[in-house]
């Protein structure tokens, strides 16, 4: 079976020396993939390289078997990719509702079904739908960001540290939703700092360091690996 997304020896950077020195990642539609690694390892860079936000200089990226290396975001969203960046991931001067509508910009059909699905998923948002996203708390913003990304009905959702800076309550809520979204047939590839929790529900785990794969396995395998635990999970 062809994987949903496949990074094949990807080399990429921001114009200077490459940040990713040949990394490999494979995700199927049923997978929740979690990337962990120290700060500056290139985790965000890996997601951005999939989404055409920087120059890939070596290797290939395939989506559903199709080569999408260096395609621009407005060509990727219609294919079924969606991305929630780590920072500045909502339109602060627009209402929650408008944020979600922007996520569905590429769709020409009626958005109301998807909108109500998302409001069901995040009831907090429904109450604040006419409030500016900039006025929301960090957790609620993260929900808006995820909701926005889901509006295009993606096959693959890329999440960059969705739980960063959130209280445990919001973190759990976000993680629960990630699992639920995955159950509907959406492949997930996320970067996480809360590595233990995330690996707990991950079907695949990738440890990146200095732009290279250090360990790859199921979430449980990584949790059980003493070396991973020592170097990357804080003992």
């Amino acid at each position: 079976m062809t994987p949903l997304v496949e990074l094949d020896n990807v080399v990429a950077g921001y114009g200077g020396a490459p940040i990713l020195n040949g990394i490999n990642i494979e995700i199927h539609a049923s997978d929740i993939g979690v990337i962990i690694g120290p700060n500056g390892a290139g985790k965000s860079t890996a997601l951005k390289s999939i989404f055409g936000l920087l120059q890939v200089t070596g290797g290939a990226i395939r989506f559903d078997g199709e080569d999408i290396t260096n395609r621009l975001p407005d060509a990727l969203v219609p294919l079924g990719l969606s991305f929630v960046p780590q920072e500045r991931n909502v339109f602060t001067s627009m209402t929650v509702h408008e944020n979600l509508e922007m996520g569905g910009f590429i769709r020409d059909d009626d958005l109301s079904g998807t909108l109500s699905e998302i409001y069901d998923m995040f009831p907090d948002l429904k109450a604040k739908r006419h409030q500016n996203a900039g006025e929301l708390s960090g957790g609620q913003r993260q929900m808006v960001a995820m909701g926005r990304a889901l509006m295009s009905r993606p096959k693959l959702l890329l999440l960059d540290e969705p739980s960063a800076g959130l209280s445990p309550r919001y973190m759990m809520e976000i993680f629960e939703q990630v699992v639920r979204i995955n159950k509907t047939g959406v492949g997930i590839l996320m970067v996480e700092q809360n590595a233990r929790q995330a690996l707990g529900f991950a079907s695949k785990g990738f440890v990146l360091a200095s732009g290279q794969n250090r360990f790859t396995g199921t979430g449980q395998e990584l949790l059980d690996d003493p070396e991973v635990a020592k170097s990357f999970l804080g003992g």
Partner: protein
Amino acid sequence: MNELIFFFNNVVVSGLVLGSIYALGAIGVTLVFGILRFAHFAHGDMMTMGGFVAFLLASLFAAWGLTLPVPLGFAVLPLTFVITAALALGIDKGFYAPLRARGAKPVTLLIASIGVTLIIQGMIRLFFGTGTYNFFEGAPKELYRIEVPLEEATRTINFSQPQVLLLLVTVVTVVALHLFLTRARLGKAMRAMADNADLAQVSGINTALVVRVTWIIAGGLAALAGTMLALDVTLKPDLAFNILLPIFAAAIVGGLGQAYGAIAGGFLIGFAETAAIFNWSILLRPFRDALPEFIEIPNNLALVPTEYKLTVAFIILVITLLARPTGIFKGAST
């Protein structure tokens, strides 16, 4: 009472008129800034260009013997809007888009807008010379006089026909723009891109399309502003370059990137200018007899002499930059 009417005519009516022109210009400046992140200095010249497009069209229709109850310059506005918007698109394609494609910094686009200024100015002067043109060919503009239903009032509140039409155009434009930005998919996409261009791109918004729409609106509004300004005064090649400062001041005061801020800023500067050059001693004259002998009302109590009107917009601009650089509506920060 007559003094009050005089005040109304010179400050309120003139302020509304000036404010409308500034607002229409500033909206374009602020939208272009919001989307493309550079101060488009050729905007004044786009306004002038719009004025000349309208003048050409009006002359053409006049030559065909067309007469209407409204000035021809006003009647051709829709067509002028379309033509100038197309020219604005062409300017972007020819001058700015290649630089953006190369990944040039916004400041390079700012410098490129000097080139556009020079080319538009050069074209206009080449074909029309440096003289002034009048849409009304000597026929006086119609004047609407509103009687004030009071005993002592012998003066009337005056609007010229172009002024009334200008206010009308402004109201229609502002309402239409509001509906576009809050209801239309592309309008919202425009706000999204001004808010966070990276996220807009990530969301799959067709940013190239948004850029085109921005130029259409900016160019079209510039045409409206330029034409209405030329109808109110006269048409000349440096028509709008001279009001570039108040227009930018309006956009900055309102917060660069904020359409509503630009409207508010435009009217703020318009009223401030007319109030600053108004001779306030006229309002004090009725009290002359009530005042003790030794207090003499000077003949001229204008805050700023007319020839220095420009300083008003500038001072407001400087105060804004010092006190609140993001503008009253929180636009782009430093």
